[in-house]
């Protein structure tokens, strides 16, 4: 009975959404913002990757909010799962030699790839969030493959996380000081397509990369440590 009622409700909601979205043309937009960003983006921000120029420059305040949400999620998780005493780990099996050697070779390459993605965020696809997630998956590989893993150094990870968050906010506040706008692009734009270009965008994306990487690694670390 309950299942039937909930199924009928779901069908009614689906019909409602379908009817209300029927009028909206799919894949077409009337807004001028897209055209403006595509035409003026490179000239105004110096970043070749338009997505990055939107995420970090035009909508930089939004990105600060996203980073804050992720930070709060990580803090809440570690507040729930934290325990003074270390969980018992008597049943931990040692990884095999093949897995251990493979992880040892792969880990630096994955770190390099993640760092490449967030350093070149203003030139090629990718950026701080993607690069940070790849770095975190490298640390996950260390957890899976290591032979004597007893948890990462928690305080060092929190320091990395907080420092990179602080760099983001301080760079934004300097823009307020110099030009009167939060997150203003006050550094020289340089020549597009070069590594040192686009003003504050690479600095902010490197900070985001460190922050996301240490946060997601901290989440996995907390989950494995908890009992």
């Amino acid at each position: 009975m309950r299942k039937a009622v909930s199924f009928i409700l779901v069908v009614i909601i689906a019909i409602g959404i379908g009817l209300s979205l029927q009028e909206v043309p799919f894949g077409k937009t009337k807004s001028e913002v897209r055209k403006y960003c595509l035409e003026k983006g490179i000239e105004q921000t110096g970043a070749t990757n338009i997505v990055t120029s939107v995420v970090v420059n035009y909508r930089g305040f939004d990105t600060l909010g996203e980073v804050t949400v992720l930070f709060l999620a990580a803090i809440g998780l570690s507040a729930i799962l934290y325990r003074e005493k270390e969980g018992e780990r008597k049943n931990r099996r040692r990884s095999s030699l093949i897995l251990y050697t493979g992880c040892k070779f792969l880990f630096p390459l994955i770190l390099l790839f993640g760092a490449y993605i967030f350093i070149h965020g203003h030139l090629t696809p990718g950026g701080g969030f993607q690069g940070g997630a790849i770095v975190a998956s490298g640390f996950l590989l260390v957890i899976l493959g290591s032979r004597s893993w007893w948890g990462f150094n928690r305080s060092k990870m929190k320091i990395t996380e907080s420092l990179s968050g602080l760099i983001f906010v301080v760079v934004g506040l300097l823009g307020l000081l110099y030009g009167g706008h939060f997150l203003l692009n006050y550094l020289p734009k340089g020549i597009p397509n070069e590594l040192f270009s686009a003003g504050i965008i690479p600095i902010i994306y490197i900070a985001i990369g460190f922050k996301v990487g240490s946060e997601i690694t901290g989440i996995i670390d907390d989950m494995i440590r908890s009992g």
Partner: protein
Amino acid sequence: MILEIILVFVMLIAAAAAGIFKDLLNAVIAVGFVSFIAAILFYFLQAPDVAMAEASIGAALTVAIFIIAIKKTKRFEEDEEGS
């Protein structure tokens, strides 16, 4: 075009399977598969940024976190009583 349609149907099947499986480990892997196909579709739709985020977060890290959570709790879903 045909490849995209096939991928969408495989994705739908994987999503339905994630709801049906009683073994939660299988369900988590099905969810990861949905994310993986979504990443490929994003790449076809010329959104490589989103594709990278989806592949690294959706297909790798979410699955890992769910597997850790399943290891700490229960692996098999129980039948709900009195529906």
